[in-house]
């Protein structure tokens, strides 16, 4: 999986009604890596993230041209969207556990995809919670409501929930922006562990976060990818003047 491209995006345009939110995006996302999307608010980074698992389908008036391929398969060409989202999991900006027990939250995905046996569900739940580094904190309260957990725990629960369906890619839309620094630290640590098994794309407002966790970074501005390079390279020797201005804090 490593070094092989997982997503291939070709001349992608995206419109919300008459507004063009993404302009001819061309990029390849590498497997087994963490890719960070950075840029100021409204630059299209979250929008691009959501085209990868077609969450934009839910937005009324959203129109897309161009192609997105997941391991060679056209995401917008007749692929079953539920299957796509099983392969490409998502973690949202605000922790959004369902109002059910911790166990049922994790089991929701597997149950959706037809797992019914108690023993199979039990082991998926435990494995996912372990992989999301939250098992020790919740193993005695699996039947308790997930909403009673702290914000940071809720977000790791949501990561576990996404892992439970066995995705190949994890999309994360500013997963730590609603969390305190300690919870953020835990999640970043977790990301580095998860990189061993999953390809991760993370949208972040926080440039330090991008340098801490990502292998590659894409800088977005006004719906375009200005620069896309190895994270070290981009933050030490940005090629584009606009990238330099942004990462040195001159705007944004």
């Amino acid at each position, binding site marked *: 999986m490593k070094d092989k491209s997982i997503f291939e995006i070709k001349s992608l345009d995206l419109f919300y009604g008459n507004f063009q939110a993404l302009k001819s995006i061309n990029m390849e996302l590498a497997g087994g890596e963490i890719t960070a999307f950075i840029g100021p608010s409204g630059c299209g980074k979250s929008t691009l993230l959501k085209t990868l698992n077609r969450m934009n389908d839910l937005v009324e008036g959203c129109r897309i041209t161009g192609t997105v391929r997941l391991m060679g398969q056209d995401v917008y060409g007749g692929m079953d969207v539920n299957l796509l*989202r*099983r392969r490409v999991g998502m973690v*949202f900006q605000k922790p959004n556990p*369902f*109002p059910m027990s911790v166990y049922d939250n994790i089991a929701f995905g597997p149950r*959706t995809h037809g797992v019914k046996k108690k023993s199979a569900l039990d082991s998926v739940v435990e494995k996912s919670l372990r992989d999301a580094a939250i098992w020790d904190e919740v193993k005695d309260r699996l039947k308790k409501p997930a*909403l*009673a957990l*702290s914000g940071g725990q809720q977000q790791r629960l949501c990561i576990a929930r*996404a892992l439970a369906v066995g995705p190949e890619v994890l999309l994360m839309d500013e997963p730590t922006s609603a969390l305190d620094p300690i919870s953020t630290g835990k999640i970043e640590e977790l990301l580095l562990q998860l990189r061993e098994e999953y390809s991760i794309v993370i949208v972040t407002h926080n440039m330090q976060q991008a340098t801490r966790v990502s292998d590659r970074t894409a800088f977005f501005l006004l719906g375009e990818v200005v620069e896309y390079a190895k994270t070290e390279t981009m933050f030490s020797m940005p090629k584009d003047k606009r990238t330099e201005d942004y990462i040195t804090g001159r705007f944004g």
Partner: protein
Amino acid sequence: MKKQKQKLTEKAFAVLTWGAAALTLGTLAFLIAFILIRGIPHLKPSLFAWEYTSENVSLLPAFVTTAEITLLSLLIAVPLGVFSAIFLTEYAKRGNKAVALVRLTAETLSGIPSIVYGLFGWLFFVTSLKWGFSLLSGAVTLSIMILPLIMRSAEEALKAVPDTYREGAFGLGAGKLRMVFRVALPAAMPGILAGVILAVGRIVGETAALIYTAGTVAQIAPSPMASARTLSVHMYALSSEGLFMNESYATAVVLLLLVAGINALSGFIAKRLGGKGERQGGE
């Protein structure tokens, strides 16, 4: 000087609000006490006999009928109302003309006096469809009456479910059906239930619409096609005849306890359902 005036206004306002609260509570307490005092002495075991006779105006048949009509009406109105609410919130596109129309219809329907429903039920179900005065005519008429209430409360409850839950479910590869039934509906359940309870209250308290459609036979109906009277109708009949005022008050006590019981039950259910997730942690 200015400060003193402000203090005075403040005091006056406090007295006013206290007064309003006291008057409201006082009226309610007086009403309940009045009914209890007039009714309880006449709550005799004979009032709970299976048979209604002209000597012993038993209320048990009416009690059974109340339960039957309530159940039948809910059976018709709840699925219809909840499904239309699901359509309005989850399936219809925003700005859809049909949605606006359905909403307008529902709002208009909920403002119509119940006697009008009664008249309609009488003309349509009793006369045209030849169902006669019957439990069925009554229940169907009442279900039309409570439909807007159930639909609107279910719609509001579903709208209050955060979109992040929906995104979460879709993000895991769930289809729309699964999202609606496993995530949105359970989360909206306390609100839907509150609407159902309100509807039960309206059914139990209804007389006008039922006199026209279910009739006033004071026995337990042998079939859904037979006429029967609910507790409220029973009370109305007793007091308008004027021969059994004491029994009428006793019936009022039973009705009061029934409604209080339903409210307590709904509170309990809402708490149990809501307790699973309502309390927001970490926010």
